[in-house]
């Protein structure tokens, strides 16, 4: 197989995830788009691991999976806190830091 098949799949998923992060207003949907981005990075790491016949890429992929789990846990806790305080998880309304 060509390595580019996997790399291009990763690039397409990454760009779809970036679009989701920019376009979505609902905080849970933004977190889902971030998961898409992390998955595309994992595909790239494993493809390079296979290309160079080296296990380090697999180890990095496992670490990314663990960090993604931690990130979702903290992120959803923050979303719940925002929802409890404001009865809404729309990111457009979180504008106190605007000057």
């Amino acid at each position: 197989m060509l390595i580019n098949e996997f790399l291009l799949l990763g690039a397409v998923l990454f760009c779809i995830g970036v679009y989701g992060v920019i376009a979505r207003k609902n905080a849970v949907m933004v977190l889902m788009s971030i998961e898409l981005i992390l998955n595309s990075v994992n595909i790239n790491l494993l493809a390079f691991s296979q290309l160079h016949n080296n296990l380090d890429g697999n180890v990095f992929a496992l670490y990314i999976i663990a960090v993604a789990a931690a990130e979702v846990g903290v992120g959803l806790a923050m979303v719940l806190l925002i929802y409890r305080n404001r009865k809404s998880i729309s990111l457009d309304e979180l504008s106190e830091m605007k000057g």
Partner: protein
Amino acid sequence: MVVAADLNVAQNIGFGIIAAFMIAGAINVVRSSNVVHAALSLVAVMAGAAAQYLLLAAEFVAVTQVLVYIGAVMILFLFGVMLTRARVGRETDLNNRSWALGIPVALLMLGVMVYVLIDGFGDDHLEPAAQVSTAELSDSIFKPFLLPFWALSFVLLAAVIGAIVLARKD
């Protein structure tokens, strides 16, 4: 350029089917007007990613992907959707006012990445998969990567405690 005889046809057909499935799922994640449908599409993308890991001969990572993402992370997402009382049906205001800005940004980024990848890795072939044995992988984690592994354990512990502290009602 690559001639067809160089390619492993069965693997390529499998890759193409799974990749199309994943891209359709990913587009549905960012396009759907129903939060629960988007979450289920995300499950499809993650399952497809696990299948791609198997094609890349990384069986342990594939199993971990199924356990952690499809098993744990998706349950967290569904809890998040339910606890923030998203409506189960269609919603009209999931997108920003300026959502259309995302399309040129994503397309520009995709164009640059496709150009660079094709320029850089034109027709590099993956060797026919040397199976990654889980024993070698664990040797790699617990010998050269032991310190990052410990750090990661503390990250997970901190995340768990942080999530509890943030989300508890007092």
